[in-house]
């Protein structure tokens, strides 16, 4: 979602590992470990890679489950459209989508991102509409 090439993904992964490594000794356990983990990862993804904002659009389709055959080509295409639409979301919207995919509750999302649950629900609905529109246009 935040990186579109293998190299970018590796860079982001390494960046997150560095941040986790540096921050872990100071983790005070005031929140759940997973919440803290998401905070560090998303904060790194949102703010850490701005130098690469103007990346070359050499997007690889995210790894799809094994066993994708020609029969599923249409589904793959649709998925591709959806991923492309997600790419066009802003950094915060991407973070919300990511947490939604990870099946985090709105309460957890609020704890991670610091956006109120009400606001998150509104944003989620808007994101879904936006994605529908973007996928249609792509």
């Amino acid at each position: 979602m935040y990186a579109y090439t293998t190299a970018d993904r590796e860079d982001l992964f390494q960046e997150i590992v560095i941040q986790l490594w540096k921050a872990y000794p100071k983790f005070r356990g005031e929140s759940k470990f997973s919440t803290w983990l998401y905070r560090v990862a998303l904060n790194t993804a949102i703010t850490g890679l701005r130098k690469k904002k103007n990346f070359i659009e050499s997007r690889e389709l995210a790894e799809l489950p094994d066993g994708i055959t020609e029969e599923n080509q249409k589904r793959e295409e649709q998925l591709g459209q959806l991923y492309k639409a997600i790419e066009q979301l802003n950094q915060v919207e991407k973070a919300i989508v990511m947490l939604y995919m990870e099946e985090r509750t709105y309460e957890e999302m609020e704890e991670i991102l610091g956006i109120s649950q009400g606001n998150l629900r509104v944003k989620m609905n808007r994101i879904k509409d936006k994605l529908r529109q973007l996928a249609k246009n792509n």
Partner: protein
Amino acid sequence: MELDDLKQTWKETTIKKNKNTDIMDIMKHKSYGPIAALKREFRKQIVVMALLPLFLLITTIDDISKIYTNVLFWSYVAFCVGMIVFASVNYRIVEKMEIMDVSVRSNLQQQIDLLETRLKWKLIGLRIILLFFIILVEVVPYFQHYRMLDKWHSLSPFIRFGAYAAFLILQYFLSRIVSDRKFGGHIKYLKELMKEMQ
């Protein structure tokens, strides 16, 4: 296709293992982003400010005895020490931001506040220091470095003060341009992110 349909695929997605698992090697990876940029900037400042007086000392090694009583040199050393302390304090503040005991939004807010405050202090501080050095250059030759009285001070006060004014104006604009280039981009980007979080 809806976002909910993607959820299933997302769950089934196999994550490619990263080739590099050596943490020490990963640590060598250059970090980007506002926090990393700030830390780099403050680190650079500490090193440069520590090296400058040393450089001055080395270049005047032939006449080292004079340096011990040189008011301008010691003022410069005091300025460098002050800058090192300021940069060290800043570095520690920035380090605290990596703890992430707060939400992403609060952390962003902290980053913006910190960047803006530091920037303001730095600009004001540099102006005051430049003014202080100008006063020093004007005053010191009357009780030390008498040779300057025959050189710089022999020029008309209009030329001297005109040069100081030009220097102050140049510093005003240059420091703004430099800090905008170094921090301004980060601030703008973080403010945009904060707006997206509203």
